[in-house]
């Protein structure tokens, strides 16, 4: 590893929900609802089950190569040049993942709070903030996961209490209306979020200071993430209905627009967005970090990290701005081809590496986990 930064298992546990939450609760739910209507929650649940299995497969792969990132594992398993190509692909993936994540925040600000502020400026400032996070290091970013998770809990609690009175169960029925196969096929949209966690773990796992029981920790982190995230499409469908969900880009914002805690607290979108800020920052900044790491490891430019961070900031800014300058383009991009790219990469890469490693006999000996 290039740095001696280490994160604890508790921080790792907290990081996983933060890598999944921000985009999934509103934007992914809306994209899924546009495809399967009231089945959005079942389709996302199926995707979550598949994603949990893939995350556990990724942890299994890392248990065989505990001190290597997925880029380094690729180089070892499929060869140097294919490994480097994987690294470049992942670096590009993380740039676009940053854009997809950053636009969760920029769209909230642009469409609901800072409607007159130029979009490029919001993108610029947010990229700058994340760049600063990467400058000071992943350990500091990951420390925000605690605040991020607390924020997720608070936003969920305030959302549930504020909208419970308008919840109508019939909006969620019938279960699996479009059929199981349609639900499975459309579960790819949640892979836009799962891929950030699966491939993010692929870059961050070696930083763990203790790699015992990571399988169990990852499983429970996914259970917690599932509860935190899936409550949103359930509540969104129950309160605003699938028809209305299909109309909005930032569905979670529409949901909090409906929340009302007694007549004395009739709206609190800004409070809820403030709860949401930390988790979005952790997600975006981690994608930024992973892109820098992938680029460095595949290019071999290990000494000019800060220059790479600065250069990638331009790419991050452009990705964010161009992706969502027109919000319809953003939604179309997330539905196609982003969901498909994420599904192929996050499902395909761990499976291909495990299969190849198995064939080449690189999974036989389990290394002793290093403790620091």
């Amino acid at each position, binding site marked *: 590893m290039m740095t001696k930064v280490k994160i604890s298992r508790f921080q790792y546990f907290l990081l996983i929900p933060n890598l999944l939450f921000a985009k999934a609760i509103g934007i992914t739910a809306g994209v899924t609802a546009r495809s399967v209507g009231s089945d959005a929650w079942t389709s996302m649940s199926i995707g979550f089950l598949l994603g949990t299995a893939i995350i556990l497969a990724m942890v299994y792969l890392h248990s065989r190569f505990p001190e290597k990132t997925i880029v380094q594992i690729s180089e070892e398993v499929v060869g140097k040049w294919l490994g480097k190509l994987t690294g470049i692909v992942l670096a590009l993936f993380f740039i676009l993942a940053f854009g997809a994540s950053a636009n969760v925040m920029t769209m909230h600000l642009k469409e609901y709070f800072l409607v*007159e502020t130029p979009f490029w400026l919001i993108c610029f400032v947010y990229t700058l903030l994340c760049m600063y996070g990467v*400058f000071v290091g992943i350990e500091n970013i990951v420390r925000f996961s605690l605040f991020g998770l607390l924020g997720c809990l608070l936003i969920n609690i305030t959302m549930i209490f504020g909208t419970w009175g308008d919840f109508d169960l019939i909006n969620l*029925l019938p279960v699996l209306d479009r059929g199981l196969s349609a639900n499975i096929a459309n579960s790819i949209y949640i892979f836009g979020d799962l891929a950030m966690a699966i491939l993010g773990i692929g870059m961050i796992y070696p930083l763990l200071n203790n790699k015992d029981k990571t399988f169990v920790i990852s499983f429970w982190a996914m259970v917690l993430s599932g509860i935190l995230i899936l409550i949103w499409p359930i509540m969104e469908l129950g309160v605003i209905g699938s028809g209305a969900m299909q*109309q909005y880009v930032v569905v979670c914002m529409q949901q909090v627009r409906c929340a009302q805690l007694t007549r004395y607290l009739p709206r609190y979108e800004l409070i809820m967005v403030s709860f949401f800020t930390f988790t979005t920052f952790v997600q975006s900044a981690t994608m930024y970090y992973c892109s820098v790491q992938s680029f460095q490891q595949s290019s071999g430019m290990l000494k000019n990290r800060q220059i790479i961070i600065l250069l990638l900031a331009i790419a991050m800014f452009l990705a964010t701005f161009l992706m969502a300058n027109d919000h319809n383009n953003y939604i179309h991009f997330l539905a196609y081809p982003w969901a498909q790219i994420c599904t192929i990469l996050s499902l395909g890469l761990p499976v291909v590496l495990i299969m190849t490693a198995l064939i080449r006999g690189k999974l036989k000996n389990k290394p002793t986990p290093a403790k620091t």
Partner: protein
Amino acid sequence: MKTIALYVLLISLPLLSGCWDMREINELGLVMAVGIDKSSNNPDHYLVTVQVANPQAGGSSADSSINRPETIWISSAEGKTIFEAIRELARISSQRIMWAHNNVIVIGESLARDDITPVIDFFSHNHELRMKTWMAVAKGSATDFLKAKAGMGSIPGQSLADMFRYQQFTGLDFHSNLLKVYGDFTSDTTNLLIGSLSLEQATTQAGLSKVQENTVEQIQMDGMAVFDQRRMLGYLSEDETRGLAWFLSENPNMVISVPHPSDSSESVAVEIVAVKAKIDSQLDQQTPSFSIQITGTGHIAEEDTTSDLSINDFKHQMEFLAEQQIIEEIDLGLDKVLNVYKSDVLGFGKVVHSQHKKEWNQGLKDRWVQIFPDVEISVAADIEIKSSTLNQIPLRNYRRSSVIDD
């Protein structure tokens, strides 16, 4: 590198001041209610009327009423679109119009009968507006309603919102908000029901002197407006509305007056609480039918005559009479919706979809508009009267001597 980072942060400081979206509160005109009509001059134009709160009117009571400004400022403007009309308002308003505190959207009858899509489209687009903003159809011009008195408050928009909030105790009216209306508007099958308002002449008296008594037009809630997908078809009366409130209201708490079992010329008031409605659908050769089951708990609230029935007999008879009355009320509302308006405003299509998804997706959905008016609906009620609310014996039976004799 730290120096570069420092410079970058310093350069970005002016960009973070938030001036672009700065809005000083004293420059804002807070809309309390808005009315949308079709313009009488040009039917293709919209007439938007806003009721804006004037905070300067909230001065001390020592100010003379002559010098004190009005609590609200009402103004109208026309435009080819609602947004254009609102922009026109800016030409006559000294303050910037802000929608975040709007309480009510009132839609004029002529616009409602034409097409309410632009109203729903504009206000659901508007990021400032709350989705829980009340919506109503005015029996007449919305502008007249914005100029009329509502309730006891000094700001009619706020008073109107309070009237919506507390109407649940009568069951005679229906409160609808933008969230519910938008949900139904984007639904595959359910059509819109929006509460309606009418103007009544009311006598008000300032202070204790009858000399100052005068008559003003006051807003009152008055049943519901029934829509097909986007056009208003007509109104439901208070009685018809009440019939539907048994299973439409979120928290129905209804009072019914039933004939006394011993003397049908007298009435007994029964308060029905904890009302629950269950709708089931059955399919017989692709023809759906529905059964509505109402359950609730009753309390005798008022008994206007003497009775020689035991408490248990009285309760059982009251339960039967209350159930019959509830069924009659529901039938009255359903009859109008099914046979006159033929519009599924009650979500029966959703019930069939949720309970028979296979048949629904295999063609029932496409034929629903034609099928719905002919569906059979059976209604049953099960009311349990649990107490006679404080009194053990009717007050008219009460004689001091009899109590002492007992």
